[in-house]
């Protein structure tokens, strides 16, 4: 470590690219970049912005990005099963008290008795796509309340605007949507938030990953990247994830500065960003059991190769887990 730091200023910076979504869940990466933690490690990191979670691992597979951070989807595990990507650290996770994804019931459905997440059984729920994080969230909600995804009708609508449209048009009973959208729908009076996924079913939402080839050929690069990433994670955690005794979130050190960085990177207003900042583990530790559960869930849904060994999708040696 000391060797790396000593070398850094003298040597030209090593180039690396990371694929991210312009969402606050990628906050630590934005912070590491903005505050120069990558440079300190001797890295010149270029951010590639994507609009959908599915594309990030594809870009890592194609070699257009060295690293990726995004939510874990069935598509991700399919790429992992072909040996194209490996999880090397955690990104954000759903935790109680951190409202990321809300279950929202339409007015009509709420009045008809859909008042808590457990009631979603047998209802029509709008999600983005089959194999998405929302799909899994319904899966684990079912695991908790004793129903399967077969017991609900998932309506895949590809993206948020279509989901909202279907919701407003009364085409579905409920929607599982990001916090900003959920709050907007509630504020409009179009629906009622009946719960948050983090409160109901905490899980490992996203991860940092790279290609196995990168680990093999450029291990020092991965180590440097993770070091910078962890520095930013810790800072993020301290600023945004602290709670007081009552369990309410409190502003930590550097709150405003970091919030500005994230708002700039996501081109959103700071107050909107502040309302949906996810929880991260300061040491980038992964919820391994949940990842195993995810793989098994997708396998049971028939969307991921049955022969995939859940352990094989992770290489946690870099975070010492």
């Amino acid at each position, binding site marked *: 470590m000391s060797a790396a730091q000593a070398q850094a200023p003298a040597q030209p910076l090593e180039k690396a690219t990371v694929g991210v979504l312009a969402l606050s869940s990628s906050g630590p990466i934005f912070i590491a970049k903005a505050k120069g933690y990558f440079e300190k490690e001797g890295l010149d990191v270029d951010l590639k912005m994507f609009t959908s979670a599915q594309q990030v691992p594809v870009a890592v597979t194609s070699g257009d990005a060295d690293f990726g951070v995004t939510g874990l989807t*069935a*598509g991700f595990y399919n790429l992992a099963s072909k040996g194209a990507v490996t999880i090397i650290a955690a990104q954000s996770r759903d935790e109680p008290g951190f409202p990321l994804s809300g279950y929202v019931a339409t007015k009509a459905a709420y009045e008809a008795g859909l008042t808590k997440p457990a009631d979603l059984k047998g209802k029509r729920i709008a999600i983005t796509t*089959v194999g998405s994080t929302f799909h899994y969230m319904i899966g684990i909600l079912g695991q908790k309340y004793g129903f399967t995804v077969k017991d609900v009708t998932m309506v*895949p609508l590809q993206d948020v605007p279509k989901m909202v449209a279907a919701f407003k048009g009364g085409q579905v009973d409920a929607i599982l949507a990001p916090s900003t959208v959920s709050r907007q729908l509630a504020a409009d009076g179009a629906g009622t938030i009946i719960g948050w996924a983090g409160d109901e079913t905490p899980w490992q939402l996203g991860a940092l990953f790279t290609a196995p080839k990168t680990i093999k050929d450029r291990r020092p690069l991965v180590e440097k990247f993770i070091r910078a990433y962890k520095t930013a994670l810790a800072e993020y955690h301290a600023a945004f994830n602290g709670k007081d005794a009552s369990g309410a979130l409190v502003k930590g050190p550097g709150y405003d500065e970091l919030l500005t960085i994230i708002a700039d990177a996501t081109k959103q207003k700071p107050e909107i960003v502040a309302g949906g900042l996810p929880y991260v583990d300061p040491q980038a530790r992964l919820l391994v059991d949940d990842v195993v559960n995810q793989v098994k869930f997708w396998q049971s849904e028939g969307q991921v190769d049955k022969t995939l060994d859940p352990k094989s999708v992770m290489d946690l040696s870099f975070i010492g887990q």
Partner: protein
Amino acid sequence: MPDSLPVNPLVNGVSAQPVRFRGGGFTVKRHPWAALAAFAALLAVWEGASRLGLASPLFLPPPSAVGRALAGMVTDGSLWLNLKASLGRIAVGWVLGTLGGMLVGFAMGIFSTARAVGVPLVSAFFPIPKIALLPLFILWFGIGEPSKFATIGFGVFFPTVIATCSAIDSVPRNLIRMAQSFGLPWRSILRSIVLPGALPGILAGFRITASIALILVVAAEMIGAEYGIGAFVLMAGNLMQTDTLLAGVLVLSLMGLAIGTVLSLLERRLLNWR
């Protein structure tokens, strides 16, 4: 001056040379095997590239893998299920868009005012991406079939308008004047002169719009479709199952091929006067 019959010294002249044939070309001959050969060659190259490891199976699964995926779809019945759902949407959407487009295209081709209004409106509305409009379609038409018909229909509508309008421009004006001079009523002129005269251009437009309809079935089935080739392809894409994805795409290609063949037959049938 030579005699009138071929027994002529010149016939045996040494320097006589045949008149070079300068015509020919620029006509359509049929080569029924060429296309098959081309497809076969394409498949062979593709499979070969995969076998030799030139293309990673993840990036471009070999045709054999795609074929297996397709066979799987056939045996588990999902092909037919998806195809049935999509065929209906494509047919209804295409017919609606084509009828509307031809109506508007004819109006624009015939009436100067309609054209003056229509050309800029088409220029302005055609480039609106349907993906951006899908939320509005959902609000207006729900998430059932109507919004899918609308997606395909609108996509087909604008190219049909343009193709029809420009096809009408190419109808020879002297034929129209002739018909007018015989007192043919306006409707007969449309039916007997303008429509058949514009047919070549309209059929070429069909070639474009049929393919667009097939493409748009994917966009249409973004709207909460359970079954359909488009929904199938989207799901395979989301799950990064490239062989299944290509199997779905192959089905679309085969549909395109079928429609194209029908159109070629129609052209040979209807345009034999050229």
